[in-house]
């Protein structure tokens, strides 16, 4: 069984068409053409009647005169798109002449096509064919999004069972597609110390997310058994080496914080710099660079993994991020960049959390553009709240609407990305 919706034409012959035109002669000509083409046709003379009709009966195509006695075409479009945005109706304007300004305005609001009087059978057939193809594409797109959302929910649930949600840890994430190749995991060792992993698979979307589960499994099981990050990273590396194709790998860093929150140890394999910030001032105390190749490329990463260990003072903060954060482009094509991030941490306002400042700067910079890569930012505040756990909350709502239009597609994906995961991890 698949969740692919039936096409609208298949549901009832070629479909239902509504003509809205007060010119009786023109509308009867069009009606005859549409009946010959296999449509069930309804003819109305007023826009208001048409809007009522659309609320009662399922209609596939609306052919309407741009200027009706009671309603202008642009108002008609606005009203049906506002009142019933979930309806999958193609709207075609009928006009005696090409009215470019009006058409431009209405196309932006959701007008699908227009035809000039007198409607020729060939032009009508071509117009309907292209709209039917768009409908098929739209159905395929919706079905694909639907399947991915379900897949993501299954993955979320599987991960939430393995993760602990720490009060002192905050995560910001944006994904380029529904699935994300960025991964944040946390687990506790039997001696009470914490392991926090941030990882970034090559690329983004479903292919990047496919390795997430085995990594999460190994990380949580090995941490709970008391293994050190070095052993965990080496084991994950071996697993990914056999699992992933040559072109794919996973950059990762693991932070270990002891149960008394006195020291931190960082392993960095191919991730951007990890920062240790001075609690009160927000200045950078340490910057931990990548010292190894990412995981999954070679059968061994290195004989002995290098790590960096530091004492921490109460209130210090650890900041980790994936390259999607610093590589994001603004509308002019300029990059957010590492220096902007460093500046934010160095010049942080004491009254605002560094995490919030970075998130605010990122959102402002990227201006809700479609992302080319997944973005993750993690902050860990090393104070008395760090070790407290809070319940994981995974919202299971599926909400997918809209046609296959670029801007809506982006909005849908962001809505899913924003709305579905409220826990301390992401996928």
């Amino acid at each position, binding site marked *: 069984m698949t969740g692919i919706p039936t096409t609208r034409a298949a549901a009832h012959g070629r479909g239902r068409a509504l003509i809205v035109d007060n010119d009786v002669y023109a509308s009867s000509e069009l009606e005859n053409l549409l009946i010959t083409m296999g449509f069930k046709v309804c003819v109305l003379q007023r826009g208001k009647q048409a809007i009522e009709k659309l609320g009662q009966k399922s209609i596939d195509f609306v052919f309407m005169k741009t200027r009706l006695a009671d309603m202008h075409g642009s108002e008609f479009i606005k009203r049906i798109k506002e009142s019933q945005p979930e309806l999958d109706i193609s709207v075609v304007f009928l006009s005696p002449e090409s009215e470019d300004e009006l058409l431009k305005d209405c196309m932006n609001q959701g007008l699908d096509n227009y035809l000039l009087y007198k409607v020729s059978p060939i032009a009508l057939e071509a117009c309907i064919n292209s709209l039917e193809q768009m409908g098929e594409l739209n159905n395929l797109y919706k079905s694909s999004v639907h399947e991915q959302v379900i897949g993501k929910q299954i993955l979320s649930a599987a991960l939430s069972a393995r993760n602990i949600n720490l009060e002192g840890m905050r995560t910001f994430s944006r994904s380029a597609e529904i699935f994300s190749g960025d991964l944040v995991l946390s687990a506790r060792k039997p001696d009470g110390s914490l392991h926090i992993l941030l990882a*970034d698979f*090559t*690329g983004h979307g479903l292919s990047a997310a496919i390795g997430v589960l085995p990594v999460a499994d190994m990380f949580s099981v090995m941490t709970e058994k008391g293994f050190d990050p070095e052993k965990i990273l080496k084991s994950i590396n071996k697993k990914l080496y056999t699992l992933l194709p*040559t*072109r*794919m*790998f996973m*950059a990762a860093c693991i932070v270990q914080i002891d149960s008394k929150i006195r020291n931190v140890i960082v392993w960095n394999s*191919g*991730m*951007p710099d990890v920062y240790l910030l001075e609690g009160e001032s927000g200045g950078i105390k340490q910057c931990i*660079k*990548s*010292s*190894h*190749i*990412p995981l999954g*490329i*070679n059968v061994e990463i290195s004989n002995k993994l290098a790590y960096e260990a530091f004492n921490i003072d109460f209130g210090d903060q650890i900041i980790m991020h994936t*390259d999607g954060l610093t*590589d994001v482009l603004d509308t002019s094509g300029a*990059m957010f960049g590492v220096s902007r991030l460093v500046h934010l941490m160095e010049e942080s306002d004491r009254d605002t959390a560094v995490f919030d400042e970075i998130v605010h700067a990122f959102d402002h910079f990227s201006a809700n553009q479609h992302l*080319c*890569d997944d973005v993750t930012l993690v902050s860990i505040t090393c104070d008395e709240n760090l070790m407290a756990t809070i319940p994981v909350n995974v919202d299971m709502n599926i909400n997918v609407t809209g046609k296959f239009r670029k801007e809506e597609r982006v909005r849908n994906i962001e809505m899913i990305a924003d709305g579905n995961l409220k826990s301390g991890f992401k996928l």
Partner: protein
Amino acid sequence: MAISQTISEDGKTVKIKIRGRFDYKMSSEFRNAYCHHPGREDVIYLVNLSNVDYMDSSALGMLLLLREHAKCRAGEVIIERPSEPINKILKVANFEQLFTIEYSS
């Protein structure tokens, strides 16, 4: 073309030069730059990154594919003159452990 390719007369050296953004969109173009040189052994692939201003993780993955292609044919990949931003990306991934990187021509 963002990727240009030249093969030496003896067929032993393939020069691949990339310009601009080297990312996931270049996947098939990059592959075409070395895959249409079949059957030869001991080939040196020189990948010039001096005019590249950005590369993503997919581009690193493409270099790994070329590395495997060369390895299977007893060849070698040399990354030539990475630009400043590209050098930083290669350093983070510690790719000098996997490739020969030449900094000057």
